[in-house]
């Protein structure tokens, strides 16, 4: 199975690749995990992962600067229905718009805006950084077998902005940080996590294994 982890100059891609290789060991798949900036490879890949750390506008510019990559993403994910996972800012880029520093268009796959987190408790620190549980808003194959809810497994978050989806049906899970914060969005063959599955130990590796086994 070819897994393309898109390299557009953002963040720590090595640990993402290693986590996918490790999780694939729990599945029947023989993984061919590649960190790549080759749009042709992405267009043909069987699984596509868009990571991302930093600011929305920077990441969008970085992605747009890779020749043919946005077109390849639309072709593979929207037209051909290849399973897609966005992580952190990679998830936020699925939104219509990002409002961090300046208003910038996203990929437009999930209608909604990426806005600052405003916890109702002003003593809560920003970024929302650390381990938190997630609450399922609706069942999803990627959460199969994973303990969610307040007594469930933890995911590692680090972010100051969140994707607020216009259509509540696109919210798969939330986390609680002085109010509900979007943790997972998705529709059809695409899903995005605000947390870092590649840094989330048990929950993360199970989630990635589910993604590799997913047949949307």
């Amino acid at each position: 199975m070819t897994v393309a982890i898109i390299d557009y100059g953002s963040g720590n891609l090595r640990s993402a690749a290693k986590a996918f290789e490790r999780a694939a060991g729990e599945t029947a798949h023989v993984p061919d995990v590649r960190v790549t900036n080759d749009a042709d490879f992405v267009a043909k890949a069987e699984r596509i992962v868009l990571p991302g750390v930093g600011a929305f506008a920077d990441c969008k510019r970085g992605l747009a600067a890779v020749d043919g990559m946005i077109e390849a993403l639309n072709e593979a994910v929207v037209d051909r229905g290849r399973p897609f996972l966005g992580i952190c800012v990679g998830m936020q880029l699925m939104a219509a718009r990002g409002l961090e520093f300046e208003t910038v268009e996203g990929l437009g796959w999930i209608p909604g805006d990426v806005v600052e987190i405003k916890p109702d408790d002003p003593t809560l620190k920003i970024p929302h950084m650390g381990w938190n549980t997630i609450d399922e808003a609706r069942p999803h194959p990627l959460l199969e077998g994973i303990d969610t809810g307040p007594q469930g497994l933890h995911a590692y978050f680090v972010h100051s902005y969140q994707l607020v989806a216009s259509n509540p049906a696109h919210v798969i899970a939330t986390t609680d940080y002085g109010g509900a914060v979007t943790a997972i969005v998705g529709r059809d063959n695409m899903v995005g996590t605000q947390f870092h599955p590649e840094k989330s130990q048990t929950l993360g590796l199970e989630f990635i294994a589910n993604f590799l086994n997913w047949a949307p």
Partner: protein
Amino acid sequence: VTLKARIIPCLDVKDGRVVKGVNFVDLVDAGDPVEAAKAYDAAGADELCFLDITASHEGRDTIFDVVRRTAEACFMPVTVGGGVRTVEDIRKLLIAGADKVSINTAAVKNPDFVREAAEKFGSQCIVVSIDAKQVSKPGEPERFEIFTHGGRNATGIDAVEFAKKVVERGAGELLVTSMDRDGTKAGYNIALTRAIADAVHVPVIASGGVGNLDHMVEGVRDGHATAVLAASIFHFGTHTVREAKTHMAAAGIPMRLDG
């Protein structure tokens, strides 16, 4: 709120080897930072910190190999500090597999370096490490000063003002070490930790002086830190990470117990 307080074991690494020793049973090579990292990963550590104290320029590359091998085996956040002076240093550490870097002396010398780093890589991976001592006498209004070179050199810079300044420039987290407590086992300097935590909106990690598990509780409950860093209490097997978590949870601090 279900965000959990974090426990961060810190390993001092020199020329690619653990110094101050790690006294775990069952480690094939206790001097290998990666073996220690794996043991902490299995023990439920919430994050891991490597402090590179390599003095020589030639030895510097050893940390990249340590980070690379750790990223292959441990799926939790890793912070690397020590000798981070340029944007290129940060880039190399992130590419090797670090999630965050901590900047110390370079931020004291030039706070604008923090802005440059945050703009380039995002605030989420820029930790500023603040080494401070309490310089006020008993009875005087509390005052804390930044020290460099392992606490030997006073700078005259007020620690709380400096904390605000680096956060303004994009630091995403502060690692606050009380140099007057480091190595004493007398507990974190709670007044210092709280003064900084209450002055900034970013998370603060308490460090320096942990001698028992109650000190960790105090760091969060009284010092308002959201994470606690410790070295020898774990390295020498005095306590396990799991014991620390259970103890803190029993004291009413939300902890991640599934790790």
